[in-house]
């Protein structure tokens, strides 16, 4: 004890002196605690972009940006009619006006023609500090203006939340349109994340199912019944070139790309019972992951590529299980409710989104993998096929409204739900594509 004391006595002394010096000021500065407060979307004003062309502007960039930010659930764009002024340049801003309106964030910009294309310029301001937080000039074309607006949304979102945005991304989905002759027509679509600019990359008289994005966003794998039985194809989006990758006897379904894009998990019943397999995209070799008399389907990769989550009724009712990509004994993940299916990992790998069933009601739920807590985020009846945006902030899913399949989005916390601008016929099985060509703020 004395040894310890003597050894540390000098240190102790120094410490005491420091403590004395530090504590000398008589009174601690006043500190006021603020707790509680309302929780809500952060106000933001996105002033309509300036445009000095003779005709109407080719796109309402501010409108697109406002819709994006609103859809995230985290921002409350100010209605245009409430704006006291419409500056397009930093020098035109009277911050006091915006402060008085209680809007902490302000976006201004302008669009101008440049050669055959356009240049979009925008600035994001902290109203209270009167500081610019971001400012860019982005060259665009008439066809890309919406995408440019989504890129601006991404920049604003990242500046204000610290998280990357996922507005300049795409979704893929299937539609079924019943023709006059009662024959259905099926299409595979690729559209902007807000549902705009949809492009059908495949039309078929037979059923199409389970689209899956390759990690680089250039290809889609899907199931087609065009040969009267389910087979798995991979199609290049740009060239429409397609390849049949799985046509074993029985079922070939539910393709899912490994995060590195070299393998495809899928479900085959070639051995008599639907099991999860991994198909190498390099040499087309197959590796069987599951082995059970029950139905094992809907595999989804963990972000690290080490394990798969899948749906199985081996416990009597469909539930989610996790298994190592190298095989082994699966581990049950879901215990709440009598139906949990279509599990998909969040981009950070910390949670799963799934369809949870309660009687005849199927809704989207997010389960925290560390606590096992499941939270239902939708409030409709026949929700299916949830898929996370690349930043994990929004979930796209399909639901049925007025007997019609529609696409919808919900913020990951379930606060903001919104229908995606519609589409013809019945839409189903939306899947959110990866982030590509991101402008980093």
């Amino acid at each position, binding site marked *: 004890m004395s040894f310890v004391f003597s050894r540390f006595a000098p240190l102790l002394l120094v410490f005491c002196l420091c403590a004395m010096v530090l504590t000398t000021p008589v009174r601690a500065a006043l500190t*006021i605690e603020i707790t509680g*407060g309302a929780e809500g979307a952060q106000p933001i004003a996105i002033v309509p972009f300036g445009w000095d062309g003779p005709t109407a502007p080719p796109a309402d960039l501010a409108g697109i940006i406002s819709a994006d930010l609103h859809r995230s659930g985290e921002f409350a764009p100010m209605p245009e009619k409430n704006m006291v002024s419409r500056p397009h340049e930093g020098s035109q801003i009277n911050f006091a006006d915006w402060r008085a309106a209680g809007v902490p964030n302000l976006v201004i910009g302008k669009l101008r023609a440049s050669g055959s294309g356009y240049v979009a310029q925008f600035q994001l301001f*902290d109203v209270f500090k009167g500081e610019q937080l971001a400012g860019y000039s982005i060259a665009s074309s008439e066809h890309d203006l919406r995408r440019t607006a989504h890129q601006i949304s991404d920049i604003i979102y990242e500046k204000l939340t610290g998280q990357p945005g996922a507005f300049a991304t795409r979704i893929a989905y299937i539609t079924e349109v019943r023709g006059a002759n009662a024959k259905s027509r099926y299409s595979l679509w690729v559209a902007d994340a807000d549902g705009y600019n949809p492009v059908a990359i495949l039309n078929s008289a037979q059923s199409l199912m389970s689209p899956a994005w390759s990690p680089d966003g250039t290809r889609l794998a899907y199931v087609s019944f065009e040969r009267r039985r389910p087979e798995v194809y991979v199609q290049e989006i740009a060239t429409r070139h397609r390849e049949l990758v799985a046509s074993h006897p029985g079922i070939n379904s539910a393709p899912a790309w490994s995060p590195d894009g070299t393998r495809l998990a899928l479900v085959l019943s070639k051995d008599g019972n639907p099991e999860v397999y991994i198909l190498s995209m390099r040499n087309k070799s197959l590796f069987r992951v599951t082995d059970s008399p029950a139905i094992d389907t809907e595999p989804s990769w963990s972000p690290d590529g080490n394990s798969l989550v899948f749906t199985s009724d081996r416990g009597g009712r469909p539930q989610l299980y996790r298994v190592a990509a190298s095989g082994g004994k699966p581990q049950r993940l879901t215990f709440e409710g009598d139906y949990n299916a279509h599990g998909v990992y969040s981009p950070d790998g910390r949670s799963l989104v799934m369809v949870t069933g309660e009687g005849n009601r199927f809704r989207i739920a997010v389960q925290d993998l560390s606590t096992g807590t499941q939270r239902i985020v939708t409030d409709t009846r026949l929700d299916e096929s949830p898929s996370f945006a690349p930043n994990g902030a929004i979930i796209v899913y399909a639901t049925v409204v007025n007997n019609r399949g529609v696409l919808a989005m919900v913020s990951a916390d379930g606060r903001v739900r919104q229908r995606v601008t519609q589409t013809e016929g019945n839409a189903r099985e939306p899947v959110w594509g990866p982030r590509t060509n991101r402008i980093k703020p």
Partner: protein
Amino acid sequence: MLKKTAFTPRAVVYAILVHAALIALLVVNLDWTPKSKPAQPEVDTIKATVVDASQLQAAHEEYKQAEQRKQQEREDRQKRLDEEKHAVEQRREKEQQIKAQQKNQAEELAQHKKLEVERQVKLKKQQADELSLKKQLEVEKLKKVQEVSRLAKTKQEKEAAEKKRKEEEKRLAEQEIKRKTVEADKKRKTDEERHRRDTEERALQEQLDAEQQRQNADKERQSKAAEGKYQGLIQQKVKRNWLRPQNTRDGLKCTVLVRLAPSGEVLVARVTQSSGDVAFDRSAEAAVYKASPLPVPPDASLFDERFREFNFVFGPEG
């Protein structure tokens, strides 16, 4: 060494002495033989007489007797001679002895005389010394006497001076005491006066202090009350203006430093300790700005002390 020794004067002296001794011995021997000669004529002085046959016998007898006598005489003479010689020798010896004795005596006498002279000289000197010592002693004694008398005199003088000094001192002391007494008196009076005044002043001061303290306490109480009041008002207003972001993790907390104008207008609100969540931090800053102007006390000192610059901590619910 040997050579050197041979030439030493002492050796020469010894050699001379040895030779002298030998010569002396020879002289003595030579001297001895001629001295015995004077005895022989005495022997020659004996008379011869003729005697008949009967008479010869008788004469022979007589001769024989004479011879015998002669022999006897010779022997006697010899004996006498020897004795004489011995006596001479003895006399000579004695003479020598006497001579030596005389010489010794002379030497002794001389010595004695010399000693006597020396003694006399010594005595004289001693006497002189004694005299001089005596004289000196007398001088010293005189000196001592003189010194003693001088000392006595000095002592007397000193004592007198001392006495005088003491008297002077005493006089001065008395004067001092007198003065001091007067002064002490004066001082006592002054002190009393001052003490009285001090006491009065202190009492007054205490009264004033107490009043001040009471006022301060009142002020502090008021100030504390005011501080608490405005703290509450500020808290309320900022809380009303705080819109927490959605989708944030639980338990976020950030500190916002705020600087106010005396009007309560927010000059600066800046996150000094981030929650780690950009949206949460910004919502906290925005809440403070939106709440501007904050309700602040009109008392400038209280404002300066507590409200010009302070911190908000935005925390989780509860």
